């Protein structure tokens, strides 16, 4: 990774939480959701622009399109959701930026088939970030199955917690702790199932899909 890239990623990783905290301090919990929305939109825009500037070959764009299509199609499978697992695997083999793009675009495209809503930018941001972090951690994740399993479970739980925060913020207009607990409680089985399936899919699919991605990369020199 180039130094410039490292610096920009570091800034991004610091800036995003800082912006959210700042939003909280300035607007209080009433305007909190809007500061998260603004951050989501800006981060997505920043990644989209950097993707445009990048020197990806058209082959890489198409392979990311396949992975986006795949994770969208996988959202149709009832009960389980391999989408995060697929985003993480793509990120492990194509890097942090491609990981963010795959996550964000998967959220956007899949909502064409499910339903677009105010949650779309947040989902784009959340799934994009999962891909982004997986891309940063690609080397340890490829090495250790345990780490991969932990990352899968962790990303699943954090994703659910984040989306639940938004639900509460949006419904009440401020952070209502008792509602949050109620939401967490009702969502608990889903969160658990999500974390478990995420891990299982990662462990089952990372090797076979990874081999295929590697094969394509070497065979066609991408």
């Amino acid at each position, binding site marked *: 990774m180039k130094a410039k890239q490292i610096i920009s990623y570091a800034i991004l990783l610091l800036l995003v939480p800082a912006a959210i905290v700042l939003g909280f301090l300035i607007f209080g919990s009433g305007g909190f959701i809007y500061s998260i929305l603004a951050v989501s939109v800006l981060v997505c825009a920043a990644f989209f622009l950097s993707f445009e500037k990048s020197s990806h070959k058209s082959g890489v764009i198409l392979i990311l399109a396949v992975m986006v299509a795949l994770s969208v199609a996988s959202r149709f499978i009832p009960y389980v959701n391999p989408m995060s697992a697929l985003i993480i695997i793509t990120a492990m083999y194509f890097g942090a930026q491609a990981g963010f793009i795959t996550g964000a675009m998967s959220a956007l495209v899949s909502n064409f088939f499910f339903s677009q809503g105010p949650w779309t930018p947040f989902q784009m941001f959340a799934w994009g970030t999962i891909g982004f972090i997986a891309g940063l951690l690609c080397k340890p994740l490829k090495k250790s199955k345990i780490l991969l399993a932990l990352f899968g479970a962790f990303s699943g739980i954090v994703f659910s917690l984040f989306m639940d925060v938004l639900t509460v913020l949006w419904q009440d207009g401020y952070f209502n702790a008792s509602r949050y607990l109620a939401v967490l409680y009702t969502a608990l089985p889903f969160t658990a199932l999500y974390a478990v399936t995420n891990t299982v899919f990662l462990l089952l699919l990372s090797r076979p899909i990874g*081999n*295929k991605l590697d*094969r394509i990369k070497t065979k066609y*020199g991408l």
Partner: protein
Amino acid sequence: MEILQIKDLSFTYPNTDSPAADGINMTVNQGEFILVCGASGCGKTTLLRLIKKELSPAGNLKGEILYNLDAKGFKETASAFDVGFVFQNPDSQIVTDSVWHELAFGLENMGIPSDTVRRRVGEMASYFGINEWYHSKTDSLSGGQKQILNLASVMVMDPKILILDEPTSQLDPITASEFIKTVYSLNREFGITVIIAEHRLEELFPLADRVAVMDGGNLIFYGSPEKACGALKDNPIFEGFPSAVKIFEGTKDLTELPEGYQCPLTVRDCKKYLNANFSHLSGKEVKVISPEPANPVIEAENLYFRYDKNLPDILRSMSISVCENEIMGILGGNGAGKTTALNVIAGAEMPYRGHVKIYGKKIKDFKNNSLYRNMLAYLPQDPQCIFVKNKVSEDFEAALAALNGKNQNIGSEIERISEELGISHLQNMHPYDLSGGELQKCAVAKLMLTDPKIMLLDEPTKGLDAVSKNKLISLLRKLRSKGMTFLIVTHDIEFAAGICDRCAMFFDGGIISQSAPNEFFSSNRFYTTSSHRACRDIFPNAILTDEVIGLCRGNV
């Protein structure tokens, strides 16, 4: 005027010893229609890709390819827009999701402003009859429409040379001939230079100005199609030549033809030739030995099937019975439901009325996959579906392990079957690196591992060249001699006529006629082999070139 000049072209892929193209010299004139043919792996795709600079494979290239696109002299470069390329698979070359966007894609790459794009796209859409589905999603199109779209989205860039690499191999015969007519009219009406590689020579031979025949990376013939016929009589490629040519070459020594008599290329000319020279044999018939009735192993009665409650019936009261040790063919138009019928017979779909019996036992009474173990095997249209692993051998091992448990003679069983089908050297390959013919053989081998008594095949000749087709025919005959039964769904009339014991016509949701091939095809006027169309005035029931030649020679 020459538009393309290839001088001493040799090309070797990395990590291989033998060149894929070896010392090729050829020139192409402006407005010519060039047919490139040869068995799979002869180097024709490599040659076409070398001509199209953007697709040049990586490897060691010697020699020169020169373009003279603007009549101002030869140059080493040609822009992406001057040389158009249409690929084999209709689906995999479409990039975008909308028809209009696909048409505009090339022009966008050229950086052409919107107003001009609109005009040129509109013009192309009208010429190719795309305006009806201009706003459609590319996915909703049929295979033929997709290939027309691919052609149109190349033509919209106004190329000087149009290269097509087996463009009709994935299409059914009627769609394919429509496609070829479209290409031909582009050549005749607009003077576009066409270089087309194809296995389907029957229709293209008479249209071509020159034929380039390749074998093992060498250009072994380059000249007019009439001359090709005589020159290549002993080459295996001759198997794929049009029936008219084969009949002529097989019988011309019996006749006293004037000096310089041109070899007939079309059914019309062949008919003229036969009527002029062999009318004294008129009325001779092929002796057809009707097979003795055996016990039926596939029986389907009054099958009704639809995919969804609200969709129309695909199968309506379909009945069929296939006897033991028989090769039965189902023919019929595109989208008629032949594949669905095969799916139902294979137990992959359930009919909502009627039932299928295999060896007298209803499909639903075969419990826990016993139908697919030592009983019935099904080869789908895309043999890729059969393979899920990264190596052919891994797939074989997984299949055997699943069937027999951890059996110690897995290795020897695989070896035996691989040996039998001649695929031992492919064991360590990735399934997607195999050619169409090789992939299909491996798929048959994987099915053979289950030791089936019945095999169902869906379009087994799709994308195969004449040599591979003949190998498939002899393979199927060999397996039949060991007691197997086959049910084959195919578009390929010549193939069905050559291999089937009985043929059935599928139409309107059911089987409308069935009989032995000679009777079946000789009672059809249009849906029949080209040999029969050529000889029907003289030999009323001959359907194969060999039969016609045999009757002419009086040794049937």
